[in-house]
């Protein structure tokens, strides 16, 4: 972790546009440090998801740069290591869960990181247990309920043991029961987080710092 006080993730004057005439983000400076849980709000289409995708190198800034774990990251290969240490939970769990069974989906990340099958199996068991999903190993992913899919998708990200979690609308579409479960899980995790959400109540429960995207720029925000 960043015992030396360096931020885990940093945006330095980052700008991004999908097409030249319509910038999405401009001059964004952001630091995420250990223990911070940043709640990020902003209108629809304001670039919240874009910001998360920039952080893991799925998109690249048109100006400025991204730093992760003390190093500037500019190219696709710079981000391979970042993706092992920064977990991104996608908005739609259908996009994230592509394996036939829960165990395989949760094992996908650890196996890609070079764990053996036995290690991966142990990680799957532990991770599911920690999210109260024990016994889900052999369930078929497309037969799960929406709430279950969201939790399994979170498990598949946590199985990589990330140091930073980026969560894109994690409570979107969840009923009270699953929103409560998810809130409890996130509050119990030690990782630094960036939480994109429209749900102020949820952010007030989980985040300890706020920011808002307004007219392409990032502004601090009091969540209370």
């Amino acid at each position, binding site marked *: 972790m960043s015992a030396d006080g360096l931020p885990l993730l940093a945006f330095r004057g980052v700008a991004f546009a999908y097409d030249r005439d319509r910038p999405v983000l401009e001059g964004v400076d952001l630091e995420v440090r250990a223990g911070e849980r940043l709640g990020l709000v902003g209108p629809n289409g304001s670039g919240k998801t874009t910001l998360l*995708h920039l952080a*893991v190198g*799925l998109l690249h800034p048109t100006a400025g740069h991204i730093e992760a774990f003390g190093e500037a990251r500019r190219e696709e290969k710079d981000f*391979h290591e970042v*993706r*092992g240490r920064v*977990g*991104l939970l*996608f908005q*739609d769990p*259908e*996009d*994230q869960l*592509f*394996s*036939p*069974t829960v*165990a*395989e989906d949760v*094992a*996908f*990340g650890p*196996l*890609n*990181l070079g764990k053996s*099958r036995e290690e*991966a*199996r142990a990680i799957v068991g532990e991770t599911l247990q920690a999210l109260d999903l024990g016994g889900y190993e*052999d369930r*078929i*992913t*497309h037969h799960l309920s929406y709430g279950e899919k969201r939790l399994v998708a979170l498990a*598949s*990200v946590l199985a*990589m043991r990330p140091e930073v979690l980026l969560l894109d609308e994690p409570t979107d579409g969840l009923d009270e029961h699953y929103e409560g479960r998810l809130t409890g899980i996130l509050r119990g995790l030690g990782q630094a987080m960036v939480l994109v959400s429209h749900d102020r109540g949820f952010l007030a429960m989980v985040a300890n710092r706020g920011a808002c995207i307004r007219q392409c720029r990032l502004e601090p925000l009091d969540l209370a």
Partner: protein
Amino acid sequence: MVCEAFLEADTFVHRLDPRVRVVAALALAVLVAVSGRLVVPGAALALAIGLAVAARLPAGATLKRLAGLNVFVLVLAAVLPLSVPGPAAFAVGPLAFSGAGLLQAAAIALKANAILLAVTALLSTMELSDLGHALHHLRLPDKLVHLLLFSVRYIEVLRHEYGRLLRAMRVRGFRPRTNRHTYRTIGYLVGMLLVRSVDRSERILAAMKCRGFKGRFYLLDHFRIRPSDTAFAAAAGLVLLALGWVEWGPGGWV
């Protein structure tokens, strides 16, 4: 999904190792397909019926599946006796039905039904994901296995998307008719499905990259051969050998 009716029962067939079932079904299908005698597909059909009963296949869904196939078989049965040259077995007015044609039609009917029923009993009774894994363990190329597994995973998602779009069209008063408006609308529907699928595939790839995907898949294997699998494999092997003996052996069977 369409074939879930076959998964409901829990018989010894359902519990057999998927790899054993794939190999047995494939071997039987090949043997029956190349057979030149009626007795081999006939025996195979009897075996397939036995397997279907043992797997407690639901009668309705099974017959529906066979009915779809037999529409084609009926067409052949009507055409072959008229088109295959040979002495007429019987004639209806000016139409002479050749004996050779009737035999061929009968062979095709037996073969097609035997293979479909055996494949239904052995393969439709496993989850498609298990089928994918079995094929992987049987060394089928990874690309084909992953194509199958991705199709299995996302076909329901696509069907839901199609359903949502169709409902959205209906609540705005869309009724399919035979006119340009209908064709254009259906065109938009299909186009929209394609666009959304491409978008989704990009999001899936992005999600996979975030979890360290570098172009290789790892499957967790969880099959284990049990005594019942060995017994079934041995029995299947003996039956296939016997059928092969009947087909190619010295006996003068027909």
